[in-house]
């Protein structure tokens, strides 16, 4: 690992953003341009995602939320412009701080109209390869194939008891309070991730990890979420969906989120009615991805700690 000077970090980020913009300018995947857009950071709604905590800010005599992702605002925009677009922005998540997490971070998010999951995965890989400036090996997995390969289980049908046994065998977690989905997540991050090399695509997630992805069936007839992630070595770089466009189902998922939050003892949030209204008018058939840009910079510069690519890491701001 190289030690970087402040100037090298500044220059690398400038080059990264230039590469991203030129990727979308030169992109011949579509007839029309991919528009660069800017969205507000302070939204009137926070995310209901049970695993994400938004920063709440008071101003103009009302509560606003620093956006944990530009997703809701970009989708409302998509309903209006019906054209592929991208934005480079800041995102904020409270209580996420560590070697590869900073509570304030940079994000690239883009949407491609008429792209399905396969198309958006290839698009994402092409962009990442171009940004890294080198060819990395690409390993394509499904959530199932990855767990079969490393733990010899089918994550879609496995019993919680068996998962608890694996957790005890392979990790240092000793309590008995994991749900099936939490146990799978723990095994993924502590057993499987350390073995990943180059770029790894993981697709077709269990339905309870769908977030905002469309549901469908895989080649074995299993109901899965059309969601994918791309890892560089052991670090998650990208998360994307073949987007859910059904407003009613979206409302049910938000309500479910709030129920989970309540069970976890977290505050519930107002559902983003503006997003649902826009979706009722019709979100175009599309896929979207977000990439953590600080992490992409870490991958490009071969750094292990997010602080090395930030000019002002969280504790020093």
């Amino acid at each position, binding site marked *: 690992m190289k030690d970087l000077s402040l100037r090298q970090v500044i220059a690398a980020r400038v080059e990264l953003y230039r590469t991203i913009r030129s990727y979308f300018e030169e992109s011949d995947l579509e007839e029309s341009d991919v528009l660069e857009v800017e969205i507000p950071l302070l939204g009137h709604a926070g995310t209901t*995602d049970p*695993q*994400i905590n938004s920063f709440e800010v008071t101003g103009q005599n009302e509560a606003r939320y620093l956006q944990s992702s530009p997703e809701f605002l970009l989708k409302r925009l998509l309903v209006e412009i019906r054209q592929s677009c991208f934005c480079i922005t800041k995102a904020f998540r409270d*209580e*996420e*701080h*560590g*070697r590869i*997490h900073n509570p304030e971070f940079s994000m690239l998010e883009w949407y491609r109209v008429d792209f399905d999951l396969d198309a958006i995965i290839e698009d994402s890989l092409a962009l990442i390869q171009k940004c890294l400036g080198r060819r990395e090996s690409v390993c394509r997995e499904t959530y199932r194939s990855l767990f079969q390969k490393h733990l010899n289980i089918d994550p879609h049908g496995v019993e919680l008891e068996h998962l608890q046994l694996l957790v005890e065998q392979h*990790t*240092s*977690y*000793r*309590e008995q*309070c*994991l749900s099936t*989905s*939490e146990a799978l*997540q*723990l095994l*993924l*991050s*502590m057993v499987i*991730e350390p073995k990943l090399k180059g770029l790894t695509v993981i697709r077709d997630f269990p339905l309870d*990890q769908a*977030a905002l992805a469309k549901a469908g069936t895989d080649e074995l007839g299993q109901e899965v979420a059309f969601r994918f*992630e791309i890892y560089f070595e052991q670090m*998650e770089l990208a*998360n994307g969906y073949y987007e859910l466009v059904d407003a009613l189902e979206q409302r049910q998922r938000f309500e479910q989120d709030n129920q989970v939050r309540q069970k*976890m*003892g977290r505050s519930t949030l107002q559902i983003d009615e503006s997003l649902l209204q826009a979706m009722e008018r019709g979100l175009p058939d599309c896929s979207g991805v977000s990439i953590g840009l600080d992490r992409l910079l870490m991958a490009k510069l071969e750094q292990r700690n997010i602080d090395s690519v930030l000019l002002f890491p969280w504790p020093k701001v």
Partner: protein
Amino acid sequence: MATYSTNEFKSGLKVMLDGDPCAIVENEFVKPGKGQAFSRVRLKNLKTGRQWERTFKSGESIEAADVVDVEMQYLYTDGEFWAFMDPDTFDQKSADANAVAEARQWLREQDVCVVTLWNDAPLSVLPPNHVELDIVDTDPGLRGDTAQGGTKPATLSTGAVVKVPLFLEIGDVVKVDTRSGEYLSRAKD
């Protein structure tokens, strides 16, 4: 009973784990994708010195350990216990052989040590970094060899054996680094 939640974890924090007092050495934040966050923690068992790894789900909490470091003066030993006194309160504590451990060979009466107390009882003892002790036994000095910097073993008043320069004799006082067990210099009387 005080507890610490995962978001309060940081190195140095003293907690109870499986009935033993531990200090957090390192806390790694682990969060897969959009999923559940975990804290992967490395801990040092303060009784045995062994390091453990344990993982907690974010939001889980563990019991705090009542562990404090106090500067205390070493008084005496009866061979089974070692007595220490707080110079401000005159409060006395006795430490057993497990607590004193390796420190015993550096303990000189009146010296001030750091005694780690768990529930008010000594858990471990840290001697001063530098101590001055008498040589009680060593081979007679071989004159003329000093230039080559040769050394010989010498037994000190506390029972510790250190390598000292050849010219030193029984009755000399030497300054020793307790962390490395190395001779530093001849003490000025």
